[in-house]
């Protein structure tokens, strides 16, 4: 039913959007900033009352992407049907133009662990994730995107490189890929991977969205340095550079600026989005020249 070759036919344009957080609800409603689209965390709009009501109002003017953070696609014990149904209910009210989740797990033994935890890259985990993506896509009756994680540890018994794991999920389920360029950079630095080789292994036709965010650097007790994907600052130069490489490979793609901790004034997010838009324009120009040649 869902083929990877069905490029996401969303009305979300290949432009930059921002992650919408509660702090900015009112200013967005009051000032209607000129932004091509916005993304929210699905879990923040469950239940009734003003949050979802406010999002419905914003959605009348701006295309919305629903980005789930807690479905736990990688749980060995299966998806929580109640949570999946809550996601379906939010989607019914908001009618999002994109929906996405993570290649990670966060639920075990009926406990939600409130973080995107790493999966061993094994055939067993791949089968579990694919089964769950199939389940989500048939429940929601739509294609979803799955996001590559940022990780701080690797499992010694992993047998599949992460980029092959991502491509396999897309090929087997027909889902799209949300390519988080900051996550690729963070994981590549943490594990000694080549970020360009990672990008080169992802199927361009499956890429439906790109994420950009800030991260921090932490010293470990053993002397090693870890990059932490904390979404608490501006996108760093090296990640902008990797983003340009991604645009060269994938072409113009809807791109999101994520900022979840120490959320700055809306203007700062818009500024970051404008920078991404400028780079998308350059990439689009390159595509047009190539077409004309």
């Amino acid at each position, binding site marked *: 039913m869902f083929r990877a070759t069905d490029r996401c036919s969303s009305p979300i344009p290949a432009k930059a959007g921002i992650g919408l957080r509660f702090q900015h609800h009112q200013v967005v409603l009051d000032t209607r900033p000129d932004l091509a689209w916005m993304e929210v965390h699905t879990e923040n709009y469950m*239940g009734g009352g003003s949050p979802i009501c406010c999002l419905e109002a914003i959605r009348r003017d701006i295309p919305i992407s629903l980005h789930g953070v807690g479905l736990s696609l990688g749980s060995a014990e299966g998806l929580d049907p109640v949570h999946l149904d809550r996601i379906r209910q939010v989607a019914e009210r908001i009618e999002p133009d994109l929906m996405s989740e993570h290649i990670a797990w966060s639920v075990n033994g009926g406990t*939600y662990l409130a973080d995107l935890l790493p999966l061993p890259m094994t055939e067993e985990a791949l089968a579990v994730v694919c089964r769950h993506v199939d389940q989500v896509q048939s429940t929601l009756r739509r294609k979803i995107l799955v996001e590559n994680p940022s990780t701080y540890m690797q499992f010694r018994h992993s047998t599949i490189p992460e980029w092959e794991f991502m491509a396999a999920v897309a090929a087997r389920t027909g889902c799209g890929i949300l390519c988080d360029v900051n996550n690729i950079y963070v994981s590549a630095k943490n594990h000694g991977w080549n970020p360009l080789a990672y990008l080169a292994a992802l199927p361009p036709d499956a890429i439906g969205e790109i994420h950009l965010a800030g991260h921090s650097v932490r010293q470990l007790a053993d002397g090693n340095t870890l990059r932490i994907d904390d979404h608490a600052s501006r996108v760093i130069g090296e990640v902008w550079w990797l983003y340009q490489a991604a645009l060269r490979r994938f072409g113009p793609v809807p791109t999101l600026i994520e900022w979840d901790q120490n959320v700055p004034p809306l203007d700062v997010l818009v500024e970051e989005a404008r920078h991404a838009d400028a780079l998308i324009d350059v990439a689009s120009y390159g595509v047009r020249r190539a077409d004309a040649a």
Partner: protein
Amino acid sequence: MGSDVPTLLEIQTAMRRGLLDNTTVVDTLGDVLAPADRLSIYRNTSRTALTNALRLNFPAVRRLVGEDFFAAAADTFITREPPHTAWLDPYGQGFPEFLRSFEPARSLVYLPDVARLERVVGNALHAPDAEPLEYLQLVGVEPSVQGRLSFTPHPSVSLVLSPYPVDAIWRAVPARDDAALATIDLSAGAVRLLVERRAGEIEVTRIDERQWKFAKALFTGHSLSAALAVADHPDATTWLAAHLAAGHLSDFALSNTESLVVAGHAQ
């Protein structure tokens, strides 16, 4: 599965224990998992996210006890009652009861009740949307069977009974209104509160004992005649009209018997 290659379930179960119990993962998986300080990065993120969820859900409790105390209480509570789902708005239903048994909070006798009010307020904020029952929908009910009417309250409506003036504390603390706090008399007697969401905003209203008993009977599905008997007050039918007008009821049914409960039982 061989002993040297753990299953996905074994890994996830071990990591859950490692993250929740603040210990390193179980020994059998030690050689396939990373050093403890890498796991601790995930533990920190998890703890911070859950503590923040409790902070958001219990702002008055947090201000009353201070950041450090709250963080310590949250840490113990998270280990004891972690959430079951990623929808964290309802997280901490057991936090008020936990505070009742939390030794460092013993001297703040009113703290669990403030937490209980905050939990009810949070539940009201995020309760499902529902159309209120309109008075006109009841017009067709024959007067002779009206006593058999029973009602479903709006999902956001709740009643709270506390021996302390928790509504006054709940209002004064987040506003840092020290003058109001200073005038609160903890021994002033019990308060009976109606909590509701109106146009997205929370309202907490004091009601008297008879109104509270009537509302309690009505909201817990007792028949109208039973609720009126419990209220035992000539104004009770006016109270019903007020509940309807305020949108406190969302549905009705006709029960088969005249009275489901004997007067006085719906307390």
